[in-house]
């Protein structure tokens, strides 16, 4: 009976499903393992690594990259890429600085309250993302190019608005009722820094979005087989545009966190952050070709990169080694991924042969 090899009655189908899901777990474990290894190594080499406060601090550092990476994940799930996030980080900080410094409307200077500032900054991020989306969907410019262009445009805008200067003490002024911006960075609701909470909430939202909302299905479909999605009536253009908008918003939030932590905003903030975000998503097992990737993986990826950086600092490893090691880790992670995929296929084939053999 070659039946087992060719077609699967329910119980076998279930079996295969189980097997695959197991493999999937193993495959995501890959990233976890990498993380575990890091933690162990650093934990052994430095007793100040595995302390609660240090873990919290490192997580806080991870949060910024993670927030950007979550947006990037959506773009990559769609099969695109967003190089402009780093510049958006800078731009959003600058806009915050400008607004907290007061708006000159007519003769008077208006000081918008912090929540307005935050909303406006995120809007700016979404706007830049919107332009990316427009270029990709309407003018079908390749995502790489469109977002590369916006990388320069957004950075240039940030520089021009701030005239290259840094906005100092964004603490705000009680008399002007625009205080509280600092909380974003230095607040510690329930003992955890705000940025960590933001990461957690955002991650939860994205998980819901991907797992439960129709949009999530549409996104995976578009990334998996755009033509099929289109034929099924998925509004692929809207989906595509939306992911860039979300990615822009995430970057803007990251920019706000940074500005708030430093209570000052520099226009050159966020340079090359896009690379870290992409690295996190990819280490987390997402495929740049689209359709494959998870929030869990992305978070793990962000932790790998963040812990690696901080750990090396604690060990006092030279910055030069830090650069080299980072590159090696990125490549290794992805090679592992590929290896696993191939291994998976070979294993399956072997099984199939065995199955058919015993029936001849």
């Amino acid at each position, binding site marked *: *009976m*070659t*039946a087992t*090899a*060719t*077609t*699967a*009655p*329910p119980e076998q*189908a*279930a079996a*295969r*499903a189980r097997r*695959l899901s197991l493999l999937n777990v193993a495959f995501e474990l890959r990233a976890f393992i990498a993380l575990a290894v890091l933690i162990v190594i650093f934990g052994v080499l430095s007793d100040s690594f595995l302390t609660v406060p240090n873990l919290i601090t490192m997580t806080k550092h991870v949060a910024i990259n993670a927030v950007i990476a979550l947006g990037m994940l959506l773009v990559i799930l769609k099969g695109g890429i967003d190089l402009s996030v780093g510049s958006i980080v800078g731009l959003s900080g600058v806009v915050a600085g400008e607004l907290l410094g007061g708006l000159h409307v007519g003769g008077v200077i208006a000081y918008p309250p912090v929540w307005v500032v935050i909303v406006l900054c995120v809007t700016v991020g979404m706007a830049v993302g919107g332009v990316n989306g427009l270029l990709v969907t309407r003018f079908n410019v390749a995502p790489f190019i469109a977002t590369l262009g916006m990388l320069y445009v957004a950075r240039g805008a940030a520089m021009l608005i701030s005239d290259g200067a840094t906005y100092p003490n964004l603490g705000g002024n009680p008399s002007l009722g625009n205080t509280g911006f600092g909380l974003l960075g230095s607040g510690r609701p329930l003992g955890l820094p705000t940025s960590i909470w933001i990461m957690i909430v955002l991650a939860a939202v994205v998980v*819901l979005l991907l797992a*439960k*909302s*129709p949009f*999530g*299905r*549409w996104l*995976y*479909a578009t*990334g*998996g*087989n755009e*033509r*099929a*999605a*289109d*034929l*099924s*009536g*998925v*509004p692929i253009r809207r989906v595509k545009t939306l992911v860039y908008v979300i990615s822009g918003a995430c970057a803007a939030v990251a920019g706000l966190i940074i500005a708030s932590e430093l209570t000052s905003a520099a226009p050159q903030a966020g340079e090359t952050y896009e690379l870290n975000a992409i690295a996190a998503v990819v280490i987390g097992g997402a495929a740049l070709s689209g*359709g*494959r990737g998870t929030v869990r993986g992305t978070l793990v990826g962000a932790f790998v990169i963040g812990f690696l950086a901080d750990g090396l600092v604690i060990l006092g490893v030279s910055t030069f080694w830090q650069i080299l090691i980072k590159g090696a880790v990125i490549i290794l992670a992805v090679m592992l991924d590929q290896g696993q995929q191939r291994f*998976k*296929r*070979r294993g*399956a*084939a072997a*099984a*199939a*042969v065995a199955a*058919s053999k015993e*029936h*001849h």
Partner: protein
Amino acid sequence: MTAPTAGPVLRACEVTKVYGGTHALKGVDFPVTPGRVTALFGENGAGKSTLMKILAGIEQPTTGHVELDGRPVRLQSSRHAADQGIAIIHQELSLCPNLSVQDNLFLAREVRTGFGAVDRKAQRRATQAVLDRLEEHADPDGLVGDLRLGQQQVVEIARALLQEARVLIMDEPTSALTAPEVEVLFRVIRELTAAGVAVVYISHHLDEALDIADDVVVLRDGLLVATARAGEVDIRWIVEQMVGRDQDTLFPDREPVLGEEALTVRDLTVADPAVPDRLAVDGLSLTVRAGEIVGVYGLMGAGRTELLEALAGRLRPVSGRVLLAGTPLDGPGIRERIERGVVLVPEDRQRDGLVQTMSVGQNLSLAALGTFVRGLFVSQPREHAAVARAITDVTVKTSGATAAIGSLSGGNQQKVVIGKALLTGPRVLLLDEPSRGVDVGAKADIFELMAAQARHGLAVLFTTSDAEEALHIPDRLLVLARGALVGEFRRGELTREELMRVSDGGIQAGFPAGHQDGAG
């Protein structure tokens, strides 16, 4: 020509469609009647799918228009058409392999809970229901990518059923289905028509299509050449209308002069690249002699493509031996095999055959480029001479070697792919569905070409999904089912009915889908 009785719900009016240089449709007037099954016949490339795509809003007619309930409509998109109650089962699977069955069924039509989230329970229930109706055992939450091709096609059907459309278009819904699965489908179709749904049915299995049909419409080269009541016609008539000339002129009779064994295959086993834990070719053995034309027939998913790709060196077999004129051909990859005289004309010319960014000439010379090299560079004169020769040999209709490949018709593009293969001076010529998406004229040329090559002592091994071809072209026909050889016949030994039965892998109706008694 008899006109249908009840007023048509959907109608294509004087529709023409042009793709690049190809005229897929030339002023076709096609009505779809409620409560009836309209079977659309036509050879590969006749324009069936194109017409359906236009009715389903996927393609826009170049000229002419579509009428719904007697009123002209512009169906901007498949979604728009679906909202009008027009559902289509696509000829080529259009599913997302990375999504579960239920996600695919409800893609862009998700059932939502109060919070606007996807209501998985409801969807699973509905999915289970429709799968049961089709007697398919797939797991609603399993990944579509893990399903057998046949099962995937059932999922495709299920999706169309879920839409509860007024017009249901089925373009080759059974190309990967076994007889029992087809039975189930027909039962469902009858239920639908009883409920007043208009069904358009396209299939290369003529008798099967004629079984289910109420009305018969025949397309040839983009023209509507005949309509009739199913009761009034027989397959012979349909074939004549389809081919538009006496069979024998399309399928020239030939007396093969057989030479040595050119290609020998011993228990070849190949894993399906798409679905690794499935064997696409399962311990298959065959031989082809010089000067012989051997055909391979089977359902879609039977493993023909994998067989040929393994022989051409693209797929690594799991086990088995391949001999070229007695000397082993194991090991070496595509390049070496081409040099040793084994070359493949792939199934999907867009995907595997042509480089769209290059000219006709560059496509033709690509595989044989090495032979034109003098010193460091490709010798222009030699290349141009060879290309010019190839263009005349395989009778490509083109403005010249520099023309863009996209400007050619389907048939001529296919000829370019064949010409490319022949330029390498092969001893064994492998062709995977050479007549797919090609008009009648080109088709005849291609068969003539195969015959000519055979006369020159080439061993020709080709696959087909078309019973007529399978019965008339090859000197010897091999029938494949699920990767195993289930029959071998000389020309004329076999009737269409027998062929149909054999190609299911000798399944007695009633067995659960997909089981087989490894016959052969």
